[in-house]
């Protein structure tokens, strides 16, 4: 009896671990072909798809292109059908078509277990290529003519999702955010959580903010710092003190690009409560940090920001000095003393002298 219980417990544990692995490993972080996770069973190709395309991963040229930044809200709102599932097969007979095995219907209705949708094989995609085995949350649009569905936005056909996503009662963006949030909260690999943070960064609702706050406590430094960047960028200053500490005294081996991202995200701060911290950040030795801080102060358009703007008139960086000048001119509505960047570069001292004199007399 006792052995039986132990056996059952071990079996349950193994099964549980297997389910978690299945749920995460098939995400849009495109898996290498030699993936060996037992639960990542390839979905059988549809038997009636004669023109099935075998993935030609090694032969496909890598892509690079200019594109819109990801916007989960736009995808969610504009899609007629949002499906979590795995592509079984693709065909290129006339129009390129993919068959998607449905795991969950996030938005819209699907009466069958699979659904076909059209796609453009040559359209560059920033998140996932349309090819068999790719798993994710797909955003589909009903064709205006001829019925059926097509990819809503070829640049972003799908985003990362867990295999056994639990759908929330709320619809719309709240639901899609929750789907991605499950990856952030449960994925074992930092790479998946990093992708999840990127997707959540594009969703501006309270739930995404809440999830990013949890991301800011992640053990992976990339997840943590990208979450902080996303929060600051959306004017959430709960993690500002951490950001300040990180920027002024970066932990050893911190990737510079992560610090740059946080510095750039400072511009998103609109909350005047952040002014003291932003003024302290103006003393950073990192020009990008000072630039982010001064841009935030500029865009607040409040008199409390004046001290910081005035301090920055003497900054070593011309970009920082420019933001100070333009910020003061916007605040005081002295348009003639708020030059365009080119004009400032030509006659910088004139503008600096004016604002320093103004500061002395205020």
């Amino acid at each position, binding site marked *: 009896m006792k052995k039986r219980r132990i056996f059952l417990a071990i079996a349950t544990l193994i099964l549980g671990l297997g389910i978690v692995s299945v749920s995460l490993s098939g995400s849009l972080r*495109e898996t290498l072909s030699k993936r060996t996770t037992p639960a990542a069973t390839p979905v059988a190709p549809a038997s009636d798809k004669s023109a099935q395309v075998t993935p030609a991963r090694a032969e496909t040229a890598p892509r*690079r292109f200019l*594109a819109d*930044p990801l916007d989960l809200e736009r995808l969610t709102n504009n899609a007629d059908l949002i499906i979590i599932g795995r592509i079984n097969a693709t065909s290129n007979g006339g129009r390129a078509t993919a068959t998607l095995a449905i795991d969950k219907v996030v938005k819209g209705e699907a009466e069958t277990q699979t659904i076909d949708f059209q796609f453009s094989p040559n359209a560059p995609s920033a998140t996932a290529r349309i090819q068999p085995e790719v798993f994710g949350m797909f955003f589909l649009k009903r064709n205006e003519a001829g019925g059926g569905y097509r990819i809503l936005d070829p640049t972003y056909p799908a985003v990362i999702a867990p295999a056994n996503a639990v759908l929330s009662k709320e619809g719309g963006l709240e639901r899609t955010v929750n789907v991605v949030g499950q990856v952030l909260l449960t994925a074992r690999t930092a790479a998946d959580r990093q992708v999840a943070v990127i997707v959540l960064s594009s969703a501006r609702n309270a739930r995404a903010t809440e999830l990013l706050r949890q991301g800011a406590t992640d053990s992976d430094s990339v997840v943590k710092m990208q979450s902080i960047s996303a929060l600051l960028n959306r004017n959430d200053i709960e993690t500002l003190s951490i950001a300040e500490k990180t920027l002024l005294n970066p932990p050893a081996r911190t*990737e510079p690009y992560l610090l740059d991202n946080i510095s750039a995200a400072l511009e998103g701060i609109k909350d005047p409560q952040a002014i003291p911290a932003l003024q302290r950040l103006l003393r950073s030795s990192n020009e990008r940090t000072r630039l982010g801080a001064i841009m935030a102060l500029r865009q607040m358009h409040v008199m409390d920001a004046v001290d910081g703007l005035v301090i920055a008139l003497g900054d070593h960086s011309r970009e920082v000095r420019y933001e100070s000048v333009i910020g003061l001119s916007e605040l005081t509505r002295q348009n003639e003393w708020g030059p*365009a960047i080119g004009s400032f570069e030509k006659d910088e001292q004139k503008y600096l002298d004016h604002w320093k004199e103004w500061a002395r007399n205020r």
Partner: protein
Amino acid sequence: MRIVRQTRFFILVFFLIVAVLIIPSILKRYVSAHSVKSTPHSDNPTQVRKAPTPPRCSACPPPIPRRIYVPAIELAEAQHTEIVLNSRSPNEMEVTPTFYTESGETILGDPIRLQPAEIRFVRIDSLIPRYHRNNHRWGGMSLSFTGSVLEVWAQITFHGVAGRGSIDETFNILGDQPSDTREAVWWMPRKSTAVIALGNSSDTPIQVTASFSDGESKQINIRPFSTEFIRRRAANGNKESGTLDSVKLTTAPASADAFRIAGFIVGGEKNFDSSIRFADTKKVAQPNLYATNLRLQNTEPHMVLKNTGPVEITARPRFSPVAGVSESPVELPAITLGPNETVDVNLTPLRIAAGTRADLDAVSVNVVNSGAAGSLIGAWYGTDTNKLLTYDVPLRDSGPIRNSTGSYPWRTDQDYTTIVNITNISDHAATFVADIRFRGGHYFIPTNELPAGGTARFDLRKIISEQKPDNQGNVIPLSVTGGQFHWSIFHSPPSSKFIGRSEVISVSKGVGSSYSCPGCCPDSGPFGTINPPPSTTPGNSFTASTTGTIYDGCTGYGTNVGWFQMEFWMDDETIASYTPESGSSTLVTGVKPGDTALHGSYSWQSFVSDGWSICYEDRGESEDQQPVQVKPTITGPTSVWWFNGENPANANMPISIQLTTQTTGSTYSWAATANGSKVILSNETTNTLTLTGNNKSGTAGDVKITVTVNGTASDEYAITVKAPHQLNRTSISHVSSGNFGYKTTITYSIRDQFNNSLGAGDMLVNEKFTTGAVGDFPGMNWLITPDGGNTVHVPAVSDVIEGENLNKNPAPQAPQTPLGSTKVVHWGQDIYIGSDTVGLGRKVQTATFQKYKDHADHENITSPIP
């Protein structure tokens, strides 16, 4: 005597001739400078009025050396002496004090510099040269300055009289031609002493005869610059609380100007300390006596009268509340005074009335005299039974017109209070203005009309604490505690008269000072203008307001009175209308483009001094006019976009805009008056201009556009030509890719030349590779993707970069920690905004596109492009 009279006659004739010869030429000059010829509106020909604007003080006698004098600066009964120096000048004044010992020794003090309208309280001994302090028994002093009469004034206050009280002594204007007779009557409480200081302000001896009411008569010889003191003790009977005394002082006419007197009552019971005020009974303007702000509440008042003439007279005292209402005055029974008789007036009816009427806490009095001018003199005293202060109030005739003015010291430091009362002693309503001056500013009190007998009361502490702005928005800062209270009769009917008095009290210091010294002449004016109006546009309005100044008729001290009354008319009402037709301002509304003029006429009153005590009055009207310009309007957007000749077709960022004038006309002409090369204009001769961006603005609104409709140009309309200018990196991320090792996404915010984010909506972007691929890794065979364009839906762009096929050399890697530094390939990349065709649009960034083995990046970035 005859010679003196002839001299006066010639002086008077001389001034009249000067006035007749000079004034017209000055008036002509003034008119040509300040009055613009105009064509009155044809509908209102009766408004064609142009009276000469009088010169302000340019007709006044030129500044001459002046001396003011007091016969006593030291009293044995007082602890110390203070002087308040009072400049009424608009200029800095240098004043030289000269001190005289009792025996006539002269000691020159150091010059004192007074700032315009400065009031300065100083101890008298601080002005005496140090070596001479405490070395003499002092007589009088004089103050010398060059200026107009009363341009500098002063008053002495003896402090600590009988231990705690104070007594005032006013200065005399030497050279003002007093008569040979001075008389005074006063009340003496028990145990008090009357001190009469007889001063000789000249360098020749004089002789004075003093005849007292008890029959005593004295001949007093006064040496040059010396002071003789007469002391008379009060009777100390047990029954009477006090007695009356009076004196008549006469001297030779030649000595009249040199002879100056002051009197004091000291040491009386109930802390009665007061001054004795002398009247020049031969120089009195009219027979009645007046006083204002006589306190009755908690006060024991005394009023004494004397008939100075040889015939019987009757006097009828009439008391009115100072609350400004002359209703229900208290009139005492007529008092008959025989020749040279003195009377202690029975005030019982007044005190009874005051006991039941709160409005009689303080009153003004008018004593109607049946006799000739100068036949009645009097004095009023009030002893505060709680504060034990004696209020010494001048009871005198109305005096010349300059008595309807005043420039008094005021102070509110420590426990000092200052209350100024101004009473209309005319038999009709009359008006005055007041100006509270202090260092660094003033507080104007516009025209006040008082009914006959009415009184206006100004409590300086209250005015300061209320912080109520005057008609020019001024308040007296809470930190200000002293200055000058100036007032003047203003635009009143002829024969109007006021009296005024300031009472400065400090209970802690036992000070109850009274200031009632007038200015030289009433203020002249107002002289002013319609404030230059802004231009307007058809259908829009502005308020044309007025600004006026009044001037002290002697010193030229100008006081800004803010707005004042005018009657308005417009040259061409088809261009602009106005309403109302009279007032301190009028609302002007544009009707159609064009030029016209707004006129305003106003009446003024002018007083010119003879240099001493006579003021010549003149009244007239003047006119001012200001141009009124009604300009065409321009409406439309204030910014246009420029994408280096491309059009991304974003409605929020149009490359062409239309400006419209709502003003109808037969001809239109649009022009760029500043930075015209940055825009292209089309349809310039219609009412709607099409404007296309051609280059970016250097500052906001640097392109100026005007439209001229039927010959009238609009104001400049400012346009900003905006352009995409730079990319600000907002994030970079590196994630692993199953197919290609890694995927890097670099995101930028697209900014204009002011580093502001571009507007919402679709935007075309493209990249152009400026070099071929350069391998950094030996044997590198990574594929190179072509450059291209795209449409973004927000003002941001991401460069999405995948690594390479896993079988290439070198094999790509997922992003490492830290990121690797193995470079594989690079090439030049420019990014353009405004077109999806490679190389078109505004170039906003140039960089090196660098692929590493485990990530990619943009390096050597230049943005914006210089």
